Every structure is written in C-alpha cells, then in structure tokens.
C-alpha cells in the first residue's frame, strides 16, 4: 500500500497522454468481477424456479432487500431509478471490500467518488425537471429572488460534500493502514492488521456505502417531489 496513487503506464492516444493509474486498473478488476457475477446471474435466471434454492436464494434476497429499502426511501412513483442506486451500492461496497486484500480501494481517489457524486447530482437535476417541470426552477428563487446565489451555492455544494465524505473516510483508513504497515516490524504484520482492516474497511465501508446511497436518494427525492 502506498499513500500516492501510482501511475502504472501511459497510453498515447492521438497526441494526448492518458495515464492508467492504480485506481483505474483496480476499477477494471472490480468491474470485471461484478460483470462476471451479473452474467452468471443472468444465465441462471432462465432456470429459476418458483421455490428458490441455493444460488437463486442469494440473488433474490439481495434484490428484495435493496428493492424494499429503495422503495421505502424513494416512494412508489420514483422507485424506477432504484437499479442505478443498486449499481452504486454494489460498486462502493465491493471497492471497500477490495482493500481488505491490501490493494488500494478505487474510492480512496477523489476522481472516483466525484464521478459517482456528479452522476447523482445530474440525476437529481434531471429528475427535478422531469417531475416538477417549472416548479423546480422556481424553487431556486425561494423564498425571494435575492436568495438565488445562496440556493445556487447550496445546490453546487451537494456533489462536493457527498464526494468528500466518502473520499475522506476511505482515505483515512488507507493512511492509517499504510502507516501501520510501514512503521511496524515484520513479525507484527500478521493477524493484527486483520482487526484494522475489519474496522476501517468492512465497518466503515459498509456504513459509508449506506450513507452515500441514502443521502443521494434523499437529494433526488427532495428534488423530485
């Protein structure tokens, strides 16, 4: 583990340099695992029975739990955007699980978290215009048009605070584990770091995933209704 994000290699596309960093490479690994699982689930979907057994049980539990959670938070008429949040949930959760293996989590890079938060922000604006039409634009001038700059800053701060929250939590775990690995002698690096990984990756990762999803759901819900 390292504090810096290493640059693995540089691609040269039409005169512009594209840096393939550790974050991008780790994201590709996570993407390939998730896509493989999704394809397996899709193939197995054909042979699903009315009474679930084994693999079907697991898939049904995951989907059902998340569907209930999203329907409760979003309400019935907005629940069609729940699959996007399921994707965000699975990606952030698996990337914090990824750092258990001593590799750098993609969410410990601000670019990743800002991309996710900016996508949520765009979704918020689109849903606001779709469901409230002109009313959404009018809500920026609430309660008086003098407050427009304040409202605008308040809206623009949403993706920044959302992304910094996840990034800071993941980065703090990475920093503490890096310090532990680099400052202690070799014979205490077996067993004891498992506790630290359990605390910073599993517990913090799960709580921060939940919080990222619930707060972006709250933003969309408040914009759309």
């Amino acid at each position, binding site marked *: 583990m390292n504090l810096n994000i290493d640059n693995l290699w540089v691609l040269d596309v039409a005169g512009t340099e594209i840096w393939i960093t550790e974050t991008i490479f780790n994201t590709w690994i996570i993407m390939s695992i998730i896509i493989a699982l999704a394809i397996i689930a899709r193939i197995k979907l054909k042979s699903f029975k009315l009474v679930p057994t084994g693999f079907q049980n697991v898939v049904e539990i995951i989907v059902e739990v998340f569907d209930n959670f999203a329907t409760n938070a979003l309400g019935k008429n907005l629940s069609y955007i729940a699959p996007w949040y399921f994707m965000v949930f699975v990606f952030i959760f698996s990337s914090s699980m990824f750092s258990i293996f001593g590799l750098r989590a993609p969410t410990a890079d601000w670019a990743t978290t800002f991309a996710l938060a900016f996508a949520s922000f765009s979704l918020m604006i689109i849903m606001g215009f779709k469901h409230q039409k002109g009313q959404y634009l009018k809500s920026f001038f609430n309660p008086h048009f003098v407050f427009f700059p304040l409202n605008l800053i308040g809206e623009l701060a949403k993706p920044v605070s959302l992304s*910094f*929250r996840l990034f*800071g939590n993941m980065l*703090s775990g990475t920093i503490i584990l890096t310090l532990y690995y680099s400052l202690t002698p070799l014979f205490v690096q077996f067993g004891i770091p498992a506790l630290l990984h359990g605390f910073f990756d599993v517990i913090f990762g799960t709580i921060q995933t*939940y*919080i990222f999803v*619930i*707060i972006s759901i*709250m933003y969309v819900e408040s914009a759309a209704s």
Partner: protein
Amino acid sequence: METVALVIGIIHIASAIALLNGVTTTFGQSRVACQAMESIARQPEAADDIRSAMFVGLAMCETSGIYGLLVSIIMLFANPLVDILMSLLG
C-alpha cells in the same frame, strides 16, 4: 535553509490545528448518538427508523471532521505554497 525549516514547522502546526475540529465533531456525534439511544429506550418499536435517521445525522456531523482531515492532508502533502517558496528561494 532556515526559512524552509520554519515554513515546514509552521505547516505541521497548522495541520495539527486543522485536525483539532475532531473535538467538536466528536462532541456533536456523541450528542446525536445519545439522543438516538434515549429515543430508542423510550420507543423500542421505532428502533429501525431511529437508527437509519441516526446514521444520516452522524454522517452529516462527520462532514466537518472529514474536511479538517482533508485540509491537513493537503497542507502536508500537496501544499502549493511550499512550491512557490521553493521557486522563490531558487
């Protein structure tokens, strides 16, 4: 050389001060958790709702602590002023 040492020392003190907001953040978070415990004890059947609201509240409180952490990290590892100083000193 002395100027650089002074600047680096001041940067370390400043990042320590930036991390001091952990005191107030922890105090706020403890208030949130305390109130949630109290209301769960009063109404155990509403525990799930209270718990999810508590997590959101805790995350909101934690934001300022995270900002302090980021400020101190930026001051220690990615400080633009040190580069300017280095180029001025040659």
